[in-house]
Structures are given as structure tokens and as C-alpha cells.
């Protein structure tokens, strides 16, 4: 137990140090506003990738409508915050939670019937659902229609997004490593066997689905308060695919993998600014190559951790000495 606490302490320390480094760099102007924007987008993408990984990676069900849940969260949060007067941090927190909850309700509603279907069909249903959401948002008056929703307060900044991202990762990590998470993974490995040993598969499928939608909604809320303008065109099928690429590239079933690839794929278009037309082409090639040569993604189901790394070093050093001794 003590050992575990120590590891948590180390991780928390690293998170805190990283925060202060980035915060200091932003405040002193080492990182300019443009780069701060990229960091914020990376945070939002991390939340999206990690939450999508819950259903696609850990539950093993393909979802192609994550952008739809994000859109619901974004619009709900934006409308909520436009109709309330609170201190700015509270307003952001309350509105993104409302956005997340509404997205979770939709996740529950769509998940309950859809999860009776298997595999491919679920992908198609969620795809259809995502498109439906987009079409409906484009045709509603309250969402500003095709013109978009304007006048959302700029409340997302580096500090907010950073801590919400960390909180999301921690919650999902704890969920996956709990008894419930093991049930979810059991369903992925073999649903029939899981059911046979008494895992309530329907409950866990719907719960995971709703949880994934909740965090997509949270990411949507942060996104709305960062962009200050929402355009329904943003939340199309392609955007769902981009999230899927993040999960698949990082490794289906690896939280750290999803984080690393979300950061990488947020930076990539910025690095390839001169080749922006080629961005999606490069995505496609990356995906095909990953699938052909490492179908489980770069990290597979492995998690990267600092103390494992330190321990691994020590052990391999020890191993070398022992190997040397036996000669």
C-alpha cells in the first residue's frame, strides 16, 4: 500500500511540476498565445481520445459517432453558460458538467438499444446517430442553425483545461483498474464467457458507453468555451474518425497510448502547416500502416509509467550483472 502511495505521489509531483513549467512559460511569454491554443486543443483532444478509448479500446465496441456526443456537450454547455451569471470558473465548471450530463443521457439512450446489437452494427448506428445530431443542430433555431452559435464567453484557459484533463485521465484510469474496469475488459475479451461467469454485460456496456459520452460532452464544453463560436460543420463524421485515429494509433486499450497519440496528432498538423492539404492523407497512411504492421496500435494494451520505467532500468542493470557473473 505504501509503495502504491509513493507511486501516486511521484505521479502527482510530475503532474504538478509540468503544470508549473507550462504555466510559467505561458505567463512569461516563452509560449505565446498561438502555442497556448495548441496546448489547450491537445488537452481537449486527450479527453476525447481517452474517453473514446473506453468504448473502443476497453469495451471493444466500435463507435463512429463520438463527435455527436461532443457536439451535444458543446452546445448544451454553451447554451447553459449563456444563460447564467456566475463567477467565471464556477460558470465554466457548472456548464461543462451540464453539457457532460446531457451527453451522457444521450449516450445512455442510444446505448441502451444499440448495445443489443453486436460489433459492426453498433458502429453504423453510432455513425447514423452522429450524423442525425449534426443535421438536427443545423436545423434548430436555438443552436444558431448552420450559421453557428456565437457569443459564448471565453472561459477555457490553460489552467482549466489542464486540470480537467488530468481529472478525466485519473477518473478513467481508476475506473479501468477497478473491479468494474476488469469486468469491462472481460466483456471485450469474450462477451459470452463474461456473461457466463456472472458479469452483468448489458449494465457494463451501457454504463461504459454513457461514461464515454459524458467525457466527450465535457470536452465539448471546454471546446465551446475556448472557441467562443460553434459551427455544426465541425462535428462531422470526419471529426469522429480523427478521434478514432488517435485511439487506434495509440493503442486500443492503452490510456497513455491515447494521450501520447492525441498530443502527437494535435501537433502534427501544426508542424505540417505548409502541407495542410496532405494532413488527412498522412492520417490515412499512418492508419493503414499501423493496422498492417501493428494492428493493436503503437502501445497495444501496455501502459507507460514512470516507476515501471525506473524499476525496469534497475532490473535490467541487475540482470546484466547477473548475466556477467554467470560467465
Amino acid at each position, binding site marked *: 500500500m505504501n509503495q502504491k502511495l509513493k507511486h501516486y505521489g511521484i505521479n502527482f509531483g510530475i503532474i504538478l511540476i509540468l503544470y508549473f513549467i507550462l504555466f510559467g512559460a505561458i505567463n512569461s511569454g516563452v509560449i505565446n498565445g498561438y502555442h497556448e491554443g495548441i496546448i489547450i486543443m491537445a488537452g481537449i483532444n486527450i479527453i476525447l481520445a481517452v474517453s473514446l478509448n473506453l468504448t473502443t479500446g476497453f469495451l471493444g465496441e466500435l463507435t463512429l459517432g463520438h463527435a455527436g456526443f461532443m457536439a451535444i456537450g458543446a452546445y448544451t454547455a454553451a447554451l447553459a453558460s449563456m444563460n447564467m451569471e456566475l463567477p467565471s470558473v464556477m460558470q465554466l465548471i457548472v456548464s461543462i458538467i451540464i453539457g457532460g450530463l446531457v451527453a451522457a443521457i444521450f449516450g445512455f439512450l442510444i446505448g441502451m438499444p444499440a448495445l443489443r446489437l453486436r460489433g459492426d452494427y453498433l458502429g453504423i448506428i453510432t455513425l447514423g446517430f452522429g450524423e*442525425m445530431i449534426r443535421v438536427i443542430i443545423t436545423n434548430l433555431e436555438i443552436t444558431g442553425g448552420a450559421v453557428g452559435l456565437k457569443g459564448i464567453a471565453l472561459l477555457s484557459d490553460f489552467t482549466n483545461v489542464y486540470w480537467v484533463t488530468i481529472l478525466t485521465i485519473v477518473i478513467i484510469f481508476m475506473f479501468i483498474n477497478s473491479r468494474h474496469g476488469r469486468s469491462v475488459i472481460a466483456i471485450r475479451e469474450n462477451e459470452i464467457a463474461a456473461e457466463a461467469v456472472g458479469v452483468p454485460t448489458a449494465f457494463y456496456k451501457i454504463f461504459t458507453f454513457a461514461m464515454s459520452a459524458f467525457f466527450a460532452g465535457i470536452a465539448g464544453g471546454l471546446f465551446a468555451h475556448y472557441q467562443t463560436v460553434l459551427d455544426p460543420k465541425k462535428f462531422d463524421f470526419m471529426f469522429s474518425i480523427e478521434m478514432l485515429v488517435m485511439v487506434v494509433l495509440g493503442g486500443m486499450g492503452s490510456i497513455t497510448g491515447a494521450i501520447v497519440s492525441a498530443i502527437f496528432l494535435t501537433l502534427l498538423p501544426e508542424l505540417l502547416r505548409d502541407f495542410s492539404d496532405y494532413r488527412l492523407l498522412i492520417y490515412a497512411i499512418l492508419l493503414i500502416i499501423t493496422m498492417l504492421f501493428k494492428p493493436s496500435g503503437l502501445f497495444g494494451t501496455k501502459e507507460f509509467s514512470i516507476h515501471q520505467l525506473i524499476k525496469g532500468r534497475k532490473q535490467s542493470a541487475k540482470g546484466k550483472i547477473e548475466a556477467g557473473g554467470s560467465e
Partner: protein
Amino acid sequence: MFEDLGQQLINGLHVGSIYALIALGYTMVYGIIKLINFAHGDILMIGAFLAYFLVRAGVPIPLVIIISTVLCALIGVAIERFAYKPLRSAPRISALITAIAVSLFIENLFMILFKPDPRPFPTVLKLKAISIGSLKINGITILTIVLSAILMILLEFFINKTKTGKAMRAVSQDKQAALLMGININRTISATFAIGSALGAVGGILFSMSYPIIEPYMGMMPGLKAFVAAVLGGIGIIPGAMLGGVMMGVAESLTKSYISSQLSDAVVFGILILVLLIKPAGILGKNTREKV
């Protein structure tokens, strides 16, 4: 009122038979290797682009259709060979993601090669419209419906009577047993992709004759709807794809004229969700129980 309804039903039948042609490609591929070939919608787009360039070069229209379907068939086979075949024993989700990636690749390759601007598809056929009472039926509509019907009958004949068709049915039932019976599985799968892609290309050409604008993303929506049609009718079942396609077309054109043209896509997906909830295997599908 009734005339208008009749007109809408004919419009629906027109679009529906195009969806049905495209849906056949999905359903055949799914039937044989259990993969949703997301790149199928892009085959449609390639077919339309090929036809566009051939028509511009002054090639006569029957030759245009033949050349572009043959080329599309070859492209379909090549996609299977390079992208799907290596993943035949991998988890199904990997193959599905590869299919999505291939679709993304083709679309963006065409974006870079031919720019995203929509191009007008030249009018190649001047067909006379027929009037039945007060109903007026376009020449293109008649051509589309007749051509699709002929192709589907030919396909049924091919699947049921020829050796390759029988091999396809055998492979889709049980790959291992088919192999033991001396069926060349790779060749059969290639043939499936070739025929599916060729039908998709014809669908694409008919589609761009009816909606004469082509652009690299044009395959996405009809592709999705055709897939929905295939699922609606019961995926893997050829008459199901035809039924689903026509149903989708009619539903779409009725929604467009009586409810809202904006919401037609939402209605189409709504129908899919409803049907799958009531009958998860599709209208003509049989419910199968999961083996333990």
C-alpha cells in the same frame, strides 16, 4: 395530390435503384469476408471521375461505361489485395478501421489530385421524357431503373448458376469447408470485389448523370446510404440489398417533398435505427444465435 405522390415515388425508385446497385457491393463483400467495405463509396466516386474524364476526351458513352467499370473493378481488387488480405486473420475491428483508412486515403488523394471544387458532369445522353397521363418520367430515370434491374437479374443469375457464383456462396457459408472442396478462396474473394466494385462504378455514373456535379467527397453520402440500405434489407442477402435500396430511395424522396429536405438524412438514419431495433438482422435477415 396523387400525381405528386406518384412523381415522388418514381423519383424514389430512381434514387433507390442507384442505392440498390451500390448496396450490392457492400452486401456481397460483407457476405463473403464479413467486412464493411467503407471504401466502396469511393469506388463510386472514382467511377464518376473516370467517366468524367473519358467523356471529356470524346469517348462514346457505352465505351465510357465499360472502361470505367473495368478500371474500378481492378481498383477494387487491388484494394482488397493490398489492404484487406493481410488482415484476414486479424481482429475484425482492425480490418474495419483499415477500410475507413482506405476510404480516407482515396478521398484525400483525389482532393489533392483534382482539387476540392465541384465540377459539372457533362450531359452525355439526351433522352426523351415519357408522359403517362399527367406523370412525366425523365429519360435518365427510365435508363437508371431499367439498367439497374437488368444488372441485378444478371447478378442473381451469376450467383446462382455459374461456377464462380456457386464458389462465392460456398465461401460465404464456410471458408474452411470451401477450401477442402478445392475452391480457390483468394480468387473467389477477388471476383467478389471485382463484381461489387463494377456495380458500384455503374451506380456512380448513373448517380452523376442524375445529379450532375462531381467532387472527391461525393461518394460518402450515397455510400453511407447504400450501406444503410444493405443493412436494412439484411446484410449478405442480395434481394435484401435491392429491397433496402428502393425503400431508402422512396423514404428519402417522400421526406424531401413532404417533411423537410434538410432533415431527409436524419430520417434515413432514424429508419435504420428503428428497423435494427425491431429486427436486428434486417428485413429479410434471419436471426442467428451466437454460438458458445
